[in-house]
């Protein structure tokens, strides 16, 4: 497979499979329109509430092939950052036009269930790439690099992805 896609898929799953049951929440149901207040309320349902410290987050689309990562980022205050993401996504301006196109249908309804994994830096016990740092800043790009090849064409990130 091109660019070690199979190995990268394994590394990704080894990293997030243990975190998904406790640090993820569905933010949008398939067929539903985006409602900012509803999404933020769902984020607050994460065990212990939405993290209020530097965290990494991964937005997943729940597809027939399983959970597919579509956007990876980091934020000091994930709830604030996701408020900004939702404003941009609703407006569909700039980079968010790609988000609309990939994740919503013509009527602005979610094409699939969407789930958000938010992992505070303090909870990260191992890096996705063996031997690499487990800081949030490094883990973000390790995940982006791995996901870009393990799920070609699915990631909406630009930085860290080949052209």
């Amino acid at each position: 497979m091109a660019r070690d896609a199979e190995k990268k898929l394994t590394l990704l799953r080894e990293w997030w499979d243990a975190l998904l049951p406790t640090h993820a929440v569905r933010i949008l149901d398939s067929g539903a329109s985006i409602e900012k207040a509803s999404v933020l309320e769902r984020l607050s349902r994460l065990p212990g509430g939405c993290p209020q410290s530097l965290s990494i987050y991964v937005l997943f689309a729940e597809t027939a092939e399983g959970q597919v990562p579509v956007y990876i980022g980091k934020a000091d205050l994930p709830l604030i950052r996701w408020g900004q993401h939702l404003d941009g996504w609703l407006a569909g301006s700039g980079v968010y036009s790609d988000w609309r196109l990939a994740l919503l249908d013509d009527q602005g309804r979610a094409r699939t269930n969407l789930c958000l994994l938010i992992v505070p830096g303090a909870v990260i016990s191992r890096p996705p790439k063996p031997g690499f740092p487990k800081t949030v800043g490094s883990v973000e790009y390790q995940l982006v690099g791995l996901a870009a090849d393990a799920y070609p064409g699915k990631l909406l990130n630009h930085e860290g992805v080949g052209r």
Partner: protein
Amino acid sequence: MTSLREWFQSVTGHRFVPLFDADETLIVRTKLMGNSEKQILKRSPAMENAVISCIEQGLSTPEWEGMMYVMGWGMGSTFRPLYVGKAERRGVKHGVSGNIANIRKNSGKFARWGDGLDYHIGDLSHAMFEFEAYRKPMKKYKRWASTLFRSVSPPMLTETVNLYLAPWCADSTGPSGLSVSLPDGEKEVIALASVEFADSLLNVDGV
């Protein structure tokens, strides 16, 4: 996974060249550019030739995706990375990036090491000599200046600064041992250098 220094030396086609055109006392020669005679640091002829060679050879090879560069002190087994970056083959809008197109006459951009603002040599010169421009010098390059130079007038280096250049192809392998894209390879090197060379690395993003 191999150590970063071992990996640097394992890359096919890599080279180390002095970055600046400096005399034996480490004073970097400068040139005056434009109507306002902006003072700009000069790249070494060896660096210019190496970049031109890497880009021209690369563009003649379909599998070539661009060039990784690492500014640092020392070379080979004693190389100490200071800043890691890349010049990609493809641009955001064009098939061949404006950063590397027509490289022999592209001194303003020159594979990101150009004399213009928003390029390394131009921004570093701006930070050092503080000439008038449409914006103020960037803090990032103030940090570069204080790290690389003992004095501004004359512009004297603390020690010789070298540039590591590595061509990147579709089958290139990063320090992780995985086959990775140039952007991913760049981030791998930054991540490992941020640990091994934590005191000197100037990259901020990806650490």
